[in-house]
């Protein structure tokens, strides 16, 4: 596959389970190693041996389907620990930044709560705040609403839309077709580890050229997700 993401662009990856959406995201931030080819960030090659993945990951944020908050820390600590221990921010500036982010996601009053006291949607919003606290150049979102109850999905999607409107460069893997259609600049349909089709949302959703894309969209429509 071959994919380019411009600054401030939002790319949505759609496709059936197992088509490689999550794997692609994890390859970008180095959690999975690639065997062939290369990944470049702002012109630098960031794949292969000898790459400082730790430094790379400080510039790329990844939000997981299962939120993966640190259960032994409260919300404030979850969001401030990376800026403090990695970016070397002092406690004061780190907490200020955290509070601003939590305000943006509407969870400022939950700063002292522990993850298991929050709902799924709240945990996912904290996870997004945590990733944003490192001020990444690129944000990767791996099916972040798939584990949520339907009522909670919207609050998270609203957040992602806000981030997009503020110019964050994002690559999202998602099943939420309606959301993809409204927020993406480019939609990629993945099938069996390949990008089968790629283009603006109107093209992919309304007049897809590949047969597999059409079949997939039809099943999704029948399942009531479009």
């Amino acid at each position, binding site marked *: 596959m071959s994919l380019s993401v411009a600054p401030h662009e939002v790319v949505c990856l759609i496709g059936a389970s197992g088509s490689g959406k999550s794997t692609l995201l994890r390859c970008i931030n180095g959690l999975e190693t690639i065997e062939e080819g290369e990944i470049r960030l702002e012109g630098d090659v960031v794949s292969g041996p000898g790459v400082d993945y730790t430094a790379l990951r*400080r510039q790329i944020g990844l939000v997981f389907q299962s939120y993966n908050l640190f259960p032994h820390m409260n919300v404030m600590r979850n969001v401030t620990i990376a800026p403090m221990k990695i970016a070397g921010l002092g406690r004061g500036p780190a907490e200020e930044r955290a509070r601003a982010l939590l305000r943006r996601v509407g969870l400022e009053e939950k700063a002292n709560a522990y993850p298991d006291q929050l709902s799924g949607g709240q945990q996912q919003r904290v996870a997004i705040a945590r990733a944003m606290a490192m001020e990444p150049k690129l944000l990767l979102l791996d099916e972040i609403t798939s584990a949520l109850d339907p009522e909670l999905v919207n609050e998270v999607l609203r957040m992602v839309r806000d981030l997009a409107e503020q110019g964050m460069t994002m690559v999202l893997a998602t099943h939420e077709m309606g959301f993809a259609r409204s927020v993406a600049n480019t939609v990629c349909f993945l099938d069996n580890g390949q990008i089968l089709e790629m283009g603006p949302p109107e093209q992919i959703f309304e007049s897809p050229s590949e047969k597999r894309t059409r079949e997939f969209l039809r099943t999704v429509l029948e399942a009531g997700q479009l």
Partner: protein
Amino acid sequence: MSATSTEGRLAVDVDAVAGGVRRLAPPPRSLALAGAAVVAAVLVAAASWGLPLRSVSALDATSDAKTAGTIVAVVFGFLATLLLIPAIQGTALSLRSRSLETAGEIVESRHIAARACEKARRALGYSLAVLVVLGLMLFLLANDAAIIETFLSWEQISRSAVDILRASWLNVWIAVVAECLILVFALTLALVRLSPSKAMAPLRWLAIAYVDVFRAIPLIILLYLVAFGIPLAGIPILSDLPTTWLIVIGLTITTSAYVAEVFRSAIESVHWSQTAAAKSLGFSTLQTSRYVVVPQAVRRVVPPLLSYFIGLQKDTALVLVVGAIDAFGQAKIYAGNYFNLSSVTFVAVIFIAITIPQTRLVDYLLAREERKTGMRKL
């Protein structure tokens, strides 16, 4: 069939069954069971009065001891007699159930019969328990109270108690010092074993070999080797250490092997997704361990660690092997002098008294951890 609901009570009538209710569920036969319970209760109560009193009166002991024994026997007999209460209640209920049945009150009869069975079974169960205790009592009193005299002599215990308690300080000291060293060494072993880098491979193999070897050697053999062997070998600093320190070293060497595995499994039990999340934020492997994995592992590791610590406390009694005088050693001296093992029984009681609260604490922590992880969504 119809179902009606009046004032919150649900009534379901099944009219269509031929033969009616009686054939479906006749009242249980309870009289035989109740009768058996009464017979058992009477026999056990009689035995509980007769046998202990007879044994006590046959004792060739001081009148004080005899009075104490008689009181215990009487109390026991009285308690055994209480068995008759559920047994007789059971029989009474059984008879009432019979008469209700003949009177046509099937449902009521069934309820009463069930209660009768319950009472009778309870009487039988308690009778069995009383029989066990009775057997134990007779065993203790047998042969002119030989068991009591050999293992539970109050005179012997009071004579040795102070010395034994003073000597048990050694057990405490060894356990605490060893535990501190074990925690550090075992965690190091576990982290070495878990390090993913290829450069650490030989050290990893060494750690694995260490754990395998020292879990295989019996502790008593290792203590012997360390406490006698090292002074003999004439190694510069180690050979001059006092015996107690050599014991600590021996205990540390062995127990660390077990505890390292506990640490390792606790660390591995922290879900990979936590490591993935930490790495994705940009933490290095060491930082991930320090801020995310080990803090979570530590919470899970406390109950099994406590169990091993309790085991360690018991193992301190092995210092005897190398001639150090701990509580057990002190007790053995008394035992040897007076040909009586009561002082040793006392040491066992000390261990029990120290250990049981700790095991209850472990149970509590385990239950609490289960409740917590049960509720966690991740």
